[in-house]
């Protein structure tokens, strides 16, 4: 039993206030959700969040791509039990789109927002969202291509920002 106090809610790490650094490196629909859910959960409990979107992860915060993320039906070992799609059939045209449509439906049923709305949610919740400079140069993207509120950052600057943070790589 403990009387309520601010201390009980302040999630202090070893270096004072707890901070979470998330690196999102994959851009498929199934891999977009884990970093978003973790970022939101951390912010909901008062933990500071820095998110770095790199390589294919950039699709999650790229305006033109974020609403069209797909789940792979070939080479995805988790596909078979859930969707019942054998790997060979998964290669047929339209299979990936159908599986993605199903997954969006299932996620919606749980009350989770779709990716573009989820990104806005974590930004509104105070998570800092960065696009990896090197990946953006490689894909010929500029800050204007990113969702509102996201900024471009180099990997070294991200290291400076996340000193003392717990780092999660997705």
């Amino acid at each position, binding site marked *: *039993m*403990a*009387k*309520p*106090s*601010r201390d*009980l*809610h*302040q*999630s202090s790490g070893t270096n004072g206030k707890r901070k979470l650094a998330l690196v999102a490196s994959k851009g498929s629909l199934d891999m977009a959700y884990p970093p978003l*859910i973790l970022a*939101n*959960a951390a*912010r*909901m*409990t*008062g933990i500071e969040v820095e998110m770095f979107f790199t390589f294919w992860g950039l699709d999650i915060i790229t305006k033109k791509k974020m609403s069209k993320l797909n789940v792979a039906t070939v080479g995805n070992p988790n596909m078979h039990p859930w969707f019942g799609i054998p790997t060979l059939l998964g290669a047929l045209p339209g299979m990936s789109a159908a599986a993605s449509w199903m997954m969006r439906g299932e996620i919606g049923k749980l*009350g*989770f*927002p779709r990716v573009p709305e989820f990104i806005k*949610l974590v930004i*509104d*919740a*105070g998570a800092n969202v960065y696009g990896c400079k090197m990946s953006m140069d490689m894909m010929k993207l500029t800050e204007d291509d990113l969702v509102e509120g996201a900024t471009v950052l180099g990997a070294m600057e991200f290291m400076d920002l996340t000193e003392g943070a717990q780092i999660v790589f997705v």
Partner: protein
Amino acid sequence: MTVDILDRVAFDEDGFMEDPSAWTEDIGRAIAAALEVDLTDRHWQVIRFARSEFENSGEPPTLRRITQQTEVNMKEMYQLFPDGPAKIAANIAGLKKPSGCI
């Protein structure tokens, strides 16, 4: 001291009320004071919504539900309860710690 009222209330180890039905608005004010939250009308909108949701469903509302069902949006929730909106609002409303992921 307003905090004295809390001596007569049972809390769990995280400082959440053991018995949500024992909650009163005065207890809510005292918990808010202990958490260093200055309650405004906007806070009360959230707290009253959380209470009514709990009375209907037995669970504290998720943060997303609060922002969908009240006038308070996500940004404002973080301004009102900077130490963590879902759990601070539930704590003040005398509810248990929310377990929802969103």
